[in-house]
C-alpha cells in the first residue's frame, strides 16, 4: 500500500509540477527543474532556522519551577 501511495505521489508531483521532471518528490536532494531549483535554494535556510528554533529553547536556562518540581519528585520517592 505504501509503495502504491509513493508511486501515485510521484506521479502527482510530475503532473502538478508540469513537466519539471523531478523523480522522487520525497527526495529534495534531486534538484531538477525550476521548482526544484527554487526549493533547493530555499531549503538550507529554513532547515537551519528550524534547527536553531529548537536549539535556542534547548539552550535556555530551565525555569525555577522545574527545579522545584524535581525536588518534589525526590520527596515522593523518599516516602515510597
Amino acid at each position, binding site marked *: 500500500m505504501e509503495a502504491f501511495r509513493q508511486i501515485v505521489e510521484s506521479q502527482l508531483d510530475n503532473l502538478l509540477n508540469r513537466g519539471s521532471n523531478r523523480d522522487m518528490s520525497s527526495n529534495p536532494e534531486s534538484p531538477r527543474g525550476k521548482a526544484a531549483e527554487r526549493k533547493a535554494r530555499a531549503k538550507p535556510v529554513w532547515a537551519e532556522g*528550524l534547527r536553531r528554533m529548537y536549539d535556542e529553547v534547548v539552550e535556555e536556562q530551565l525555569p525555577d519551577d522545574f527545579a522545584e518540581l524535581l525536588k518534589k519528585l525526590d520527596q515522593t520517592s523518599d516516602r515510597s
Partner: protein
Amino acid sequence: MTAAKAPPGFDFRAEMTRVLPHLRAFARGLCGRPDYADDLVQEAMLKAWAARESFQPGTSMRSWTFVILRNVYLSEARRNRFRGEYDPDAAEKLLSQPAGQEDGLHMGDLRSAMMRLSPERREALLLVGAGGFSYEEAADIAQCAVGTMKSRVARARRSLEDMLSDDGQSGFKSKTQSVSHTEILDELDRVANG
C-alpha cells in the same frame, strides 16, 4: 530511594533532567506557546516519574519521554484545554524576538509557517528536522509507519517551502495547486491506512 531494579549507577532523575531542555523545545514547537509548553513538560515529567520503573536503562530517555510528552499534548488538545493552533498574541511576541543573522530568514516567519502546518506534519518536521531523530526513531515516537513519517516530512517541507519562498519573507501565499496536491495525498493516506 527505592529505584527498584534499576542497575547500580543508573540515575533516572539525572537522565530525565538531562533531557528536559529537549522536552521544552519539542513542546514549544508542538503548541507554539511557551507557557503552555512548559505546563505540558511538567505534566509529562510527573507521568514519566510515575512510570520510571518501566524505563529500560540503555534505551533513549529522550525518545521515551517524547512519547509521554506527545501523549500529554494530544490528550490536552483533545480536551480542548488549548488548541494546537496559531495564536496571534504568541506569534506577535515571538516576532518581536531578535531575528536570525544575515541569512534572509525571519525566525518569526518560520515559526508562523510551522504553526500553519497540520499537527502531524509539524510534529514530523520537529522530530526529524529540528530534533535530529532518524525517520525510524521519529516513527516510533509518533507511533506511525516509517513510510508515513517520511511522507509527512516530505510534505511538511514542501508546504514550508511554498510558504517561505514564494513571495519573499512576509506573505504566506498558498497556491491552490499545492493545497489540492496536499488534499489528494491526505486522501490517499486515509485510504492506505484506513
